[in-house]
């Protein structure tokens, strides 16, 4: 498990945010699937992804 820097710990008090190994599986939640499909459709719009990659690489 990656270690958090002291700076990150200021905003991420790990001891208060617990892993729930029995958490319900939300990967099949229709809303999240629908939003991911909408995101995919948008990013697949001609030119969008290429433009995003270009601007990210220029940073």
């Amino acid at each position: 498990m990656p270690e958090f820097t002291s700076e990150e710990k200021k905003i991420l008090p790990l001891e208060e945010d617990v892993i729930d190994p029995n958490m319900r599986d939300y990967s099949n939640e229709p809303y999240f699937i629908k939003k991911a499909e909408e995101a995919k459709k948008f990013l697949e719009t001609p030119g969008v992804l290429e433009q995003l990659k270009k601007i990210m690489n220029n940073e």
Partner: protein
Amino acid sequence: MNLERYNYEKSSDFFSYVFYSEGPKGVIKKIVRYTPVILNTTLYFNLGFGDWDEAENRINDLVNTNNRDSEKVLATIAHTVVEFTKYYPKAIVYAEGSTLSRTRLYQMGINKIWNEIEEKFDLYGFVEAEGFHPFERNSNYQAFVISRKNQ
């Protein structure tokens, strides 16, 4: 960054985060979920967020519960981005509100914490007919992409 936020529970794979909003409307269960989206061999993650409707056993994304804690909720979502990308440092996260007003709310939240996160994150906003731009506080965006800076 000392913004007040809710504590959350997280899934073992760090893709899902559950927290409880508390306010005049009572206790509302909220879910943040990072859903993988593969495009041209690059893995993106859609940031999904919504209220859990116990009666319907599903996310209700169009309800406006207005628990008078939007800043705290947004700070909580922001913390999940920090944590998620810590475990998945190469992740490119895409976020868009289910309505324009929600996207605007996301932007207001980003504006508040931008000074704290711009050192470690690259953030881009999408403007209709213009494409993605490096995030600027005074611009209005329809969607966002965020990733950790290469270190």
